Every structure is written in C-alpha cells, then in structure tokens.
C-alpha cells in the first residue's frame, strides 16, 4: 500500500484534495453529492478529458502541442461540411471522418518536428496560427447550425430519477470519453509502443540507440493527439449542437494546465492516464463547487489559477521538506 502511495503520489494527492472538497461540499450544500451533479460533472468534462488524454501521450513522448484545440475546431468545421455534402451519415461515419482529419493534422505537426528537427513548441505555435487563421479566413467566422439530426440529438445512455423527481443522466460524450481514456491507458501501459513512447520521452538518444523507431514515435504520439482532438471536436459539436469556429480557441492552455497538474512532466517520460483524468476532474469539481456555493462565476478563473499555482509550488518544493515527518516514508514523488 505504501509502495502504491509513493509511486502514485500525484494521483493520491489529487484524489485526497477531491475527497476533501467533496466532503466539505456535501456537508455545505445539499446538491453536490447527488447523482445528477456527478453525472453533470462527467458530461461537461468529457471534451476536456478527451483532449487531455491525447495531450498526455504527446507530453509523455517529450513534446508539447499548442495547436490541438484549434485543430479540433477545424476538424469540427470540415466534418460538418463533409457530412452535409454526403447528406447525413451517422455516428460511425462522423467519428471516422473527424478522427482521420484529426490524425492528418497531428501528422502534419509530426512531419515538421521529425524531418526538419524543429522543436514541437515552435511547430505547434506556427500550426496554431496557420489552422486558426485559415479557418477564420475561409469561413469568415460563420457558424454552422444546420447539423445532421443524429449529431445534435442528445443520446441518453443511462437515466435515473431520484426521489425528488430530478432526472440524472449519462450521455453519449461520457461514453466516448470512457472509450478514449481506456484506449489511451491501453496504449501507454499495455503495449510495446506505449513503453517505447515513454522511453523515447525520457531519453530520446538512449531510445534511438536501443533501436526504437524515432520517427514512428513522433508520428504515433502526435497522430494519437490528432485522433483524440478530432473526436473531441465532434463530441463538442454534439454537446453544444452547433459548430462555432472559435469556440475551442484558448482551450489548449487550460487543458495543458490540467494535464500537468495531473502529474505529467513537461519534458517527457512521466505521466499517467489516471492522473491526467483526475487533473481535469479536479478543476471541474472546483468550478462546480464554487458554482454550488454561489460564488460569482467571474471569480472562477482567479481561484482556479491560484489553486494550480499553489499546487505546483507545493508539489515541486516537496511536501516532505515542508513536513519533515513525512520524509521517512520515502521520496514522495
């Protein structure tokens, strides 16, 4: 047990913080600890979690990506146009189109990163501007409201009526999110490719000398994020029932903060799917709890920013150094 705690310090800390928030809130408000609220949390965080697990793979491989959110906007738009062009389609076709366009965007980044040896932050800042600029230029910022019926109809997978008559439901985004989370978990911790990505992120030169195909690692990592952002784009369109070109603009930095809060290291080689999901959920739980406590929504970002800043300061300055008794239990990292 102690070993588990020590090897997953970030995840345990996040879970602890969330439990504390949860307990305080379930005492302070009667709304927090209801099924409906928990399901709402999952439904609203679905898109961010899909982004987050995709970004996690790139961070583990030692790269960073700024462009995924605007790439998702572009995918959304193109998919909506393509679906209109083929006259409808269904979920499978939609996911295939969105996923493959997303992968293309990811591969585009990987191409420049690998073949021209440009570091990923430079490439993705460039592609961020290219994707967003082209999208806004070509669409003139016009939104699409005329989406196929299957895309805009909410799909309820599980519903439950509580004793006071309020409905709580799990919708399709949550299911897709679960699929993405499990697939990413499988990729990272159960496949050889996943281990190679971790090794590559930890030490690229060492990985190369081991005979790991560096090009494949770059393309798989960025392709995976592309796939995830494509799916997330489609799910977002489903969730808000419209395609707005700049709706996802600015999401990339929030997701990045959440993923790194979940223990992924900028620089590669470390990070878990659980931590990353908990990172996103912690932020949305905080937001949710502030909402329930009646705090003005204008204060959300301020408080969340302060929490992340405090979390980074505490986790990096080493809690064990601040609390000397803990240090006997070993390196809490």
């Amino acid at each position: 047990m102690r070993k588990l705690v020590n090897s997953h310090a970030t995840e345990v800390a996040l879970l602890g913080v969330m439990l504390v928030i949860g307990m305080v809130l379930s005492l302070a408000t009667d709304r927090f600890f209801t099924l409906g609220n928990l399901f709402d949390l999952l439904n609203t965080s679905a898109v961010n979690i899909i982004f987050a697990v995709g970004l996690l793979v790139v961070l583990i491989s030692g790269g960073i990506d700024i462009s995924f959110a605007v790439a998702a906007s572009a995918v959304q738009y193109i998919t909506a146009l393509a679906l209109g062009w083929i006259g409808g389609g269904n979920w499978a076709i939609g996911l295939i189109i969105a996923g493959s366009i997303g992968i293309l965007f990811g591969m585009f980044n990987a191409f420049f990163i690998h073949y021209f040896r440009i570091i990923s932050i430079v490439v993705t800042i460039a592609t961020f501007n290219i994707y967003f600029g082209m999208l806004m230029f070509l669409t003139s910022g016009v939104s699409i409201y005329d989406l196929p019926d299957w895309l805009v109809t909410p799909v309820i997978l599980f519903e439950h009526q509580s004793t006071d008559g309020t409905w709580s439901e799990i919708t399709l985004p949550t299911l897709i999110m679960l699929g993405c989370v499990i697939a990413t978990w499988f990729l990272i911790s159960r496949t050889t490719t996943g281990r190679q990505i971790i090794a590559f992120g930890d030490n690229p030169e060492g990985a190369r000398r081991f005979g790991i195909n560096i090009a494949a690692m770059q393309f798989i990592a960025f392709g995976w994020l592309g796939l995830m952002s494509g799916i997330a784009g489609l799910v977002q369109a489903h969730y808000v029932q419209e395609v707005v070109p700049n709706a996802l603009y600015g999401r990339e930095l929030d997701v990045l903060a959440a993923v790194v809060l979940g223990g992924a290291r900028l620089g590669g080689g470390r990070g878990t799917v659980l931590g990353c999901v908990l990172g996103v959920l912690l932020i949305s739980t905080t937001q949710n709890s502030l909402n329930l406590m009646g705090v003005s929504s204008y204060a959300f970002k301020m408080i969340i920013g302060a929490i992340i800043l405090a979390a980074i300061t505490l986790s990096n300055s080493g809690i064990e150094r601040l609390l000397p008794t803990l240090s006997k239990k070993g390196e809490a990292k």
Partner: protein
Amino acid sequence: MSPQIKRLQSYIGPEMAGPLAALIAVIIIFGFASPRFLSSATFGSVAFQLPELGLLSLAMMLPILTGGLNLAVTFTANIAGLTLAWTLLYFGGADAGPGAFIAGCFLALAVGALSGLIIGIVVAYTKAHPILVSLSMMIFVRGLGEFLTRGGDISGFPAFIQPLGHGSVAGIPIPLLVLCAGVAVWHIVLQKTKLGFNTYMIGSNIEAVRYSGINTRKVVILVYTLSGAMCAVAGIIMLSRFNSVRVGHGESYLLITVLACFLGGVNPFGGFGKVIPVFVALIVLQLLSSGLNLIGANQHLATAVWGILLLSVMVLRWVATHLTFINHKKSQGR
C-alpha cells in the same frame, strides 16, 4: 571581410540573417504586388500597430532567453492597464490631472512587476516548469481581472493621455518611440550588463552558472520581474491607444509574441538570441499584415501567413545547415 563588416556582424549576430532576408523578401514581394505598398501610409500604419505587439514580445523575450516562457504577458498587461485606469477614475476620471496619471503609471508598473516577481520566485525556488507557472499565473490574473471588472470595459480618461497612443513627435508616432526606447533598454541590459550576461548563461546551462558562484535565483527572479514591468508598459500604451481597458484586449497576441521571438532567432531552449533581430522580425510581421490588408485579405489570413512564415524560416534554417555542412549546433539547440 573588412573589420567594419565583421564588427557589425558580431554586433547584430548571426540571428540577423533570417529576419533580414524575410524583411527584404516581404518588401520586394508586396512592392510588386501592390503599388500602394511602398508608401508612407503603409509604414505609418505599421508604426502605429507595431508597439503593442512589440512591447509584449520584448516582455516574452527575456524569459525565453533563460530557457523559460512567460505566458502571462497579455493578461499582465491588462491588469496593469486596469490599475492605471482605476487610479485615473479614483482621481476623477476625465478630470484627473497629470499627477494622477504619473502615479497610476507607477502603480501599473508595480503591479506588472509584482506579477512577474511571483512567477520568478516560484520558478526560481521550486524548479517548476516556467510554462506551467506562468500559465497558472495567466489563469489567475485573467480571473482577477474578470472578477474585478465583471467582464466589462473601463473608459473615461483625461484627454491628455490620448497623444500617448495617437500622437507623434517629428512624424514618429509616440508609441513607436516608446517601443524603440524599450528595445534600446533591453539591448543595453542584455549586451552591457552583468544581468544580461547571466541571463544568456542561465539559458545555456543553469547548473554550470550556479556552480560558478552566481546567484541564479536572483537572476531568474529579476528577469521575470523585468518581463512583468515591460508588460505594464504595453498595458499603458494599450490603454491610451484604445482609450479603454478590458480584460482580454490583445489576448490573441499571446502566441504571436512567442512566434515573433522564435522568428527573430531566439533559441527556444534559451541562451541565444538578440533584441534587434526580434525587432526586425516584428516589423516583418506587421508589414506582412499591412501588405495582405492592401491586397484585400484580412487579419486572419495574416495570422495564418505568420505561422507559415515561422515554419518556412525554420525549415530554411534546417536546409541551410544541411547544405553547407556547417556545424551550427549552438544555434540549433538540438
């Protein structure tokens, strides 16, 4: 090569080649594409648009030289602008005197510097990644601004502020003069002072610098504080340009400032890069934007072209090093 040229080259550095080539290419291409491009009107509009982006890029540049990043620049500028705005409103809004303005500017600089100071302290003492620290600072500062203004904008400033944003001295816009002063200060700090030398050294190898007895924490904190103060200058200029302050003004500049630094030859890992090439890169970006505007395209296309320009410069740099087989390890960073 004559000694003068050599001295000139050592003065502006090898980073100059890319931005200068881009500048010439842009002038030639748009000069042919549009007869109205090479006119004083174009350069006038560039001169007025350059300062906001330019000051923020300067603020971004120092942290990048140490191998970090300051993602809070735009919102730090906002919050500094808000500080000035509130000071002016406190002293009577449109009736506020020059004294209130000067006091407000000092307060704005202090607030900007404070924001940088906090980032610097956390980065220096916890060794957390600067991207992450400045990112959470950005979220915090944006939230603070939104909380205090409720998302609205603040206006109603005395008339004597407007020349700071729109006036010109001897045909040169005042904002541009402020930017040039900023460039000069940064150039002197980086090239002539101990702080500048240590900044480059930290970007190259922080451990080695620490072992050679330099207080790296102090340097890192100073660098981020200076960066925050430069954001405040940008905030003051933005206030006088728009004659109002709103959280989110210039938000879209955030990644463009990083782009401008990289385009100006600043090494993403830190340690290499000079101010003048960044300044030239900024001029290239604005000329491109104005040129595209002249031939009927809009700002969004310019954004895309900026991205393409950054990618092509990076690719060309790769091609150049591979064609000449010159070992450019230092400037390539990999």
